[in-house]
């Protein structure tokens, strides 16, 4: 997938933002924070995982997602979101 395809989805960006902020969350918790339905979240999580940006750990039925620390793409996204958040704080906006 091209970078513009990854970043073109508002839901995917929100997932990345919430995981960059919280570190690790299960599908239901991400869904609640995004305010979308479970299937939508799960579908976008699959896309991001297929791109190696996310990884998950499985405990029975529970899947905990986080940014894939070993992935250069995930590290770049984390840096981008941190910079965005920081500039938002400086200008008094919420990122």
């Amino acid at each position, binding site marked *: 997938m091209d970078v513009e395809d990854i970043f073109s989805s508002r839901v995917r960006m929100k997932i990345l933002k919430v995981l960059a902020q*919280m570190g*690790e969350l299960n599908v*239901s*918790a991400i869904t609640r924070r995004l305010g979308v339905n479970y299937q939508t979240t799960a579908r976008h999580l699959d896309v991001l995982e297929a791109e190696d940006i996310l990884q998950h750990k499985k405990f*029975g039925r529970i899947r*905990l997602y986080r940014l894939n620390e070993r992935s250069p793409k995930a590290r770049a996204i984390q840096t981008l979101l941190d910079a965005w958040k920081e500039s938002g704080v400086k200008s008094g906006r919420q990122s």
Partner: protein
Amino acid sequence: MPQYQNVFKDEAKLDINYVPQRLPHRDGELRLLMEFFDFMLHFPGKMSQRVLIVGEVGTGKTALSQRFGVDMTREAGNRGTNLHYIHVNCREYHGSFFLILQHAITVFHPNFPKRGYSAEELLTFLMQILDEENTYAILTLDEFDSLVLTEGSDAVYQLTRSQEVRQNKPQRLSLVCILRDISAIGQLDASTRSTLQSNIINLAKYSKRQLIDILNERVIIAFKPLAVPEETIDTIAELAYSENGNARFGIELLWRAGKYANAENFDSVSAESVRKAISSIVPATKKSDLAYLNLHEKLFLLGLARLFKDGHKAHVSLAEAEQIYMVACEEFNTEPHSHTQLWKYLHTLSGAGIVKTEVSAAGPRGRTTLVYLPRIPAADLEKELWALLQWKGA
């Protein structure tokens, strides 16, 4: 700005959660505890360990285990072994096996979901995490009696046998169980009990001399030089000794006396500051002990406090307690719990050392359970509970 006196150098050193570098008069017990776990440093994964630490309130059980946890984790790290020391106060989690395990898991995964699985699954997840991260854990169950009372044998059996069902896998989970009275494990079935009873460390109550040493150590690190005269330490040690050799009580009193000295702008903590401090606290029962109680335990205790306050009685019957508990429930707009449930609450309160129970000699109507409030002024207790119940918006 006027200059105010401050007797403290670092009052955090008197906090209940502070783990001192040195534990006066517990060196032997600390060495023994380290000895029990020595294999973990030399042959990690070969076996797991279970140790009981038994002693009255304020005998240093929690401080001992936390000091051990810090030392053991550091020592394991030096040897390249990944070890986590997890300290859980079972009463804080109302003795729930589920919540205790959930707390243990959040050490590794802080955002682990709060529901959607059973306690048995949580134990499996915990072992999975330890395997995946190639780490070992010492799980310390403080106020272990609360878990025994709430969950009975099953939970403890699962914990102690969790390794045995994992044949040919590293032994990753060890247990330290802390309790006030060894008789609490008498409620467990024989096979569960037998898995726990092999290593017991008994902590005797402190003598006055020992309490003076403990207080002196804290004074050095928490107060400015010369801020606490010897006579003050002696007075506090005497009071702590009369509270069953309770060092925790002594340290709390020392902190509070320092606060009174500051409030009056004194440059040292006098015996008078100690007297003022002692009259302001609920002896032998920390406020946090009361905060851990659930709503109905608090209401039951509130009723008891009122019975004792108004009647100048030495004891009351369970039937009387039940009646006034119902009044308290009505006052706080909540449905009263059953007689059987009240029995459990009475056990909890008795286990926490807040009340004492006794079965009367057989009378014309058979035997009656008598409830005593031996150490806490009923008026103070009522005030404290009332504040807690209001605060919780009950």
